[in-house]
């Protein structure tokens, strides 16, 4: 039992620190790709900028607009952090290092990451602000439509491994990582994952240049910080899921412990997320929906059918 609490504590500690550290990592990497330096003054290489940001967020005035729906307004930012942290419950970091080894782990992940949309919708609705509402509306439709083929893309992995349990899925990749048989599924999941975390280029619920700050326009102080942390946790979650499902999770040559392999691979995907942000323009809202429903959705269905057909053909 004590071991169990150690895992929970360790996972929470690692995740929250990663999410905070990503503020610095992202700013430094973006700067690197834009031929700048980024934050480099506070502490070695500017890492203490995280501390400064956190202190600033805590001491900012925590303003609830008088026209807002107070209960929902306060409740919404918690939902995103909660739902993302709950998704991490099923994530296998190494053999045995998993908070809850559910046999429906993948479904649990899909369910929890879908709950994240409530944060956007409730936050935008409770703000009682037209920009927030527009952002929330976009967020809701974007996340719901991308959710559909996110799940469908993952079914290819489930078909290949024959299990919803994430640890078993990783074990099934001992021979070959699923990136090779499921390359199209991987691409679809990557795109859907970016949309799910509403990161750039799919940050249209926020869309600074059009909607002020989208669904969290009215938020300030630590409530805004929760959305912020939730976003970075979301990146970590999607990166971790990509690694678990397509890149063999903790598997790797034996000279490094499994956890380290998992961390290295996840970190590589976090870098990819930041590279997306550095290099891609934001699509128009209707382009995003069109791309999702007319290209990715049929493609994921096709991918699932072909995978299943090949699996059946091999088995008989």
């Amino acid at each position, binding site marked *: 039992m004590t071991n169990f609490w150690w895992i929970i504590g360790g996972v929470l500690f690692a995740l929250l620190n990663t999410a905070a550290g990503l503020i610095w990592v992202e700013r430094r990497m973006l700067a690197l790709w834009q*031929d700048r330096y980024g934050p480099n003054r506070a502490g070695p290489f500017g890492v203490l900028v995280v501390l400064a940001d956190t202190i600033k967020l805590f001491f900012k005035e925590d303003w609830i607009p008088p026209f807002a729906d107070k209960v929902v307004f306060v409740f919404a930012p918690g939902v995103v952090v909660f739902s993302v942290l709950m998704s991490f419950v099923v994530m296998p970091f190494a053999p045995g290092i998993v908070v809850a080894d559910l046999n429906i782990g993948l479904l649990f992940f899909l369910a929890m990451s879908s709950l994240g949309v409530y944060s956007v919708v409730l936050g935008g609705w409770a703000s009682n602000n037209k920009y927030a509402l527009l952002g929330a509306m976009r967020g809701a439709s974007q996340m719901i439509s991308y959710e559909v083929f996110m799940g469908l893309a993952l079914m290819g992995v489930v078909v290949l491994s024959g299990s919803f349990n994430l640890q078993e899925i990783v074990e099934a990749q001992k021979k070959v990582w699923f990136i090779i048989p499921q390359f199209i599924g991987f691409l679809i999941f990557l795109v859907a994952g970016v949309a799910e975390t509403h990161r750039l280029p799919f940050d249209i619920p926020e869309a600074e240049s059009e909607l002020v700050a989208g669904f969290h326009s009215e938020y300030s102080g630590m409530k805004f910080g929760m959305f912020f942390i939730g976003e970075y946790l979301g990146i970590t979650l999607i990166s971790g899921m990509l690694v678990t499902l397509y890149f063999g999770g903790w598997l790797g040559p034996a000279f490094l412990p499994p956890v380290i392999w998992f961390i290295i691979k996840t970190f590589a995907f976090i870098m990819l997320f930041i590279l*997306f942000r*550095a290099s891609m323009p934001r699509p128009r809202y209707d382009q995003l929906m069109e791309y999702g429903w007319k290209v990715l959705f049929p493609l994921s269905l096709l991918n699932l059918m072909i995978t299943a057909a090949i699996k059946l053909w091999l088995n008989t």
Partner: protein
Amino acid sequence: MLSLVRSMWLIFLHMFHKRETFQYPEQKAPLPARWRGRIALTRDPDGGERCVGCYLCAAACPVDCISLQATEDESGRRYPEFFRINFSRCIFCGFCEEACPTYAIQLLPDYEMAEYNRQNLVYEKEDLLINSEGKYPGYNYYNIAGLAIKGKDKGEAQDEEPPVDVKSLIP
């Protein structure tokens, strides 16, 4: 789709490019030779003030940030009694420098003038005067001008002919 991948790759390659940033307090950007920065009042080669208080700079200033009061000393030289530039208004256009007939007011390549208190941006004459001839070394207005001052009568200036006595018939 491929163009997106291509742009991602190109931006990834920027990792290996030189960074454009100047690490400011330690490393300063090279200034152009004619940079218009802090305004200063320069002096003659013999140390006297060049400014003759003609108000042309104050008249030329588009934001009215220069104010001065001319006066005259016992030798007949004009000089400003006070000379005040409000740098919180100044736009560093350099019109004052162009207007100045005696090369007194000049813009220097110095831009580090930030203050915490706005009032500290109002420079008085003693803050503006510098111990230098600025961009025109050797220039001394009263040595060139025909104006008579104590110690230099009419016709004694550089390249100046003695005044003609219009009432005399002697050729």
